[in-house]
């Protein structure tokens, strides 16, 4: 690859091109592996510039709208929403023994601090989003999970399971004991409603195991843990 061609890739990575020129460059990405590799090289070098974007608070109502969109996308009915929750934080976390690694987004409110209220009512709390990634040796795709700590609603994207088996979602807290949060729907997204304030919390691990139809007969995971991720503030 000539130096000039490397700069062609840089132009695309920076977003300098438009119209025909951009189309031509994009075609080269598909047709020329070397060009695609050069583009990836530039993108990874330029990534550090993301740090220069200054933060700006979006409107408080936006969190609720996003949750509604996710519900619509996932085919579940609108959840209880709390417009004051915000913002989302992300943390990358080191992989544990089971996790290949994981990504977690954490949503916390900006103001005010959580105010405990009697159970059954809405509670201000962080909204956590995690990408559960495959456990070692497992071949499932990462799965997104959104945890509304305030209302106790967990949304989990669709996960493929073998015929006749179900996926079960677990929370593993500081004591290291897995506690079942419920079974995931077969062939679609799931929304589980937990008792208020039963977690999971920041720092907890979410795990998905494959269990016999009806769920784990023992109260602990009996099948392979296929995906796991830790909720963290990063």
């Amino acid at each position, binding site marked *: 690859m000539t*130096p*000039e061609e*490397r*700069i062609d890739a*840089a*132009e695309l990575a*920076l*977003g*300098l*091109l*438009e119209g025909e020129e951009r189309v031509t460059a994009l075609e080269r990405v598909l047709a020329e592996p070397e060009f695609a590799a050069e583009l990836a090289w530039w*993108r*990874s*070098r*330029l*990534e*550090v*510039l*993301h*740090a*220069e*974007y*200054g*933060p*700006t*608070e*979006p*409107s408080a109502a*936006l*969190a609720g*709208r*996003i949750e509604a*969109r*996710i519900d619509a*996308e*996932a085919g579940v009915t609108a959840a209880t929403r709390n417009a004051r929750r*915000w*913002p*989302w*934080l*992300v*943390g*990358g976390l080191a*992989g544990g023994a089971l996790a*290949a*690694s*994981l*990504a*977690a*987004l954490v*949503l916390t409110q900006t103001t005010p601090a959580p105010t405990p209220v009697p159970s059954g009512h809405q509670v201000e709390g962080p909204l956590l989003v995690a*990408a559960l*990634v495959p456990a070692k040796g497992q071949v499932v*795709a*990462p*799965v*997104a999970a*959104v945890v509304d700590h305030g209302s106790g609603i967990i949304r989990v*994207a669709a996960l493929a399971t073998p015929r006749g088996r179900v996926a079960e979602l677990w929370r593993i807290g500081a004591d290291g004991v897995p506690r079942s949060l419920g079974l995931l729907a077969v062939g679609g997204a799931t929304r589980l409603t937990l008792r208020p304030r039963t977690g999971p919390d920041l720092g907890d691990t979410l795990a998905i195991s494959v269990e016999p139809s009806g769920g784990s007969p023992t109260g602990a995971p009996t099948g392979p843990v296929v995906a796991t991720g830790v909720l963290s503030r*990063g």
Partner: protein
Amino acid sequence: MTSAKLFGICLRICGERQTAEDVLQEIYLTIWRRAPSFEPSRGSPVAWLATIARNRALDWRRANHRPALETLPDHIGRSAGEPADTALLADQSLLEEEVDTRLRDCMEELDGRPRAAIRAAFLDGLTYSELARREAVPLATMKSTIRRALLRLRDCLSDDA
């Protein structure tokens, strides 16, 4: 990374709040949909999120009427011009462990004008023609200036790498 950071990306590239909020919604939807394709081995989740945000915002700019030069938000006009703005400001909450001082050092070695233009291209989503209009130079001049700078940047980044 906070939603404020992702929103900051949208706002800077889209230039107006309402649009930026619409784009931010799309970004979260994209994250929800694309989590299965995230490859932990290929980069940090923070960079993955920021990349999605920037790309979606740029998609919007490409698909819609781009603001005329006169109506570009002030910060866009400023960002490429003021020397003070060429200093890289690391966000402590972001990329803390992955700050690439190499890029910073190599950018510093470039002349001020092309350096500012490269930053504006990345951060504001400005294209060659928009940069040329703003600097009031012929398109071909802007292109060759930036391409020369990118060649130097490539060489610098490759040294000792």
